């Protein structure tokens, strides 16, 4: 059920969700996106280039986080603009075979601004992992009919 544009107000909560991430998820994202940088799947390579370990693709995090907005809006095509800065890498531990996540991402969102002339609303996302904000200025502009 799509939200009604006329009832949107700044500050309105759009909900939250938890995303669990494993090394397998990073391999899947690498294959789906074509980004095969080994820092996202090979520990020795990642530490060899002075990273603390294997890190999630920023674009995995960005792409997963926006699903909260897509589902709230009721149509993926409603997201007309989406931007973020990547501030902290998400370290993904190797939990292969344990059934445990290697990292957990918490996503929550709120309406930041409503533009009645454009028929759009800006949703501001808060994206946190291991107690730190991993995305900054994560903003999706949604056009609602």
């Amino acid at each position, binding site marked *: 059920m799509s939200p009604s544009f006329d009832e949107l107000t700044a500050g309105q909560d759009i909900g939250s969700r938890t*995303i669990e991430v494993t090394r397998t998820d990073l391999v899947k994202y690498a294959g789906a996106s074509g980004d095969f940088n080994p820092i996202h799947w090979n520990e020795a390579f990642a530490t060899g*280039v002075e990273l603390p370990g294997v890190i999630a693709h*920023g*674009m995995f995090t960005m*792409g997963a986080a*926006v*699903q909260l907005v897509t589902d709230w809006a009721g*149509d993926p095509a409603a997201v*007309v*603009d989406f931007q973020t800065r990547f501030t902290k890498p998400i370290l993904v531990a190797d939990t292969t075979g344990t059934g445990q996540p290697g990292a957990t991402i918490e996503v929550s969102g709120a309406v930041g601004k409503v533009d009645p002339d454009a028929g759009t609303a800006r949703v501001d996302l808060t994206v946190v992992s291991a107690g730190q904000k991993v995305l900054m200025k994560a903003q999706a502009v949604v056009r609602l009919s």
Partner: protein
Amino acid sequence: MTINPDLQGRSYPAAEVYDVGREKIREFARAVKATHPAHFEVEAAKALGHSDLVAPPTFAIIIAQRADAQLIEDPDSGIDFSRVVHADQRFTHHRPIFAGDRLVAELHVDGVRAMGGGAMITTRSEIFALTGNDGGDRQSVATTTSSILVRGEGQ
């Protein structure tokens, strides 16, 4: 390894065509843990008024990063891909991306800024759909902008 400062202002014309397939949309959607039915079921997409499956909001990164690869793999650029960290990203959709689209991207290097021993490079991809029977016309689909930090030694 130093970044070539002359990269700023450089453009790479649209190269190969990217054919957007239904299975690729489904695969990408699963990879970002998207569950909206408009990514998976044609009937669900049509019920929302779309011609075919709708790509997730960040799908255009596939096409944008292919375009970026022209720059990163250009021996003249001085970029070491293993030291690249994504700093920021933006997608502006002029229309959604649908299965069946035939897309091309023009790459523009909008900024090169030295940072410590490395550099911040901002690129913009203008993504078009080829339209018309002979694919001779272009429709603007998305503009993506991306900044990458190429870390210097010790960064």
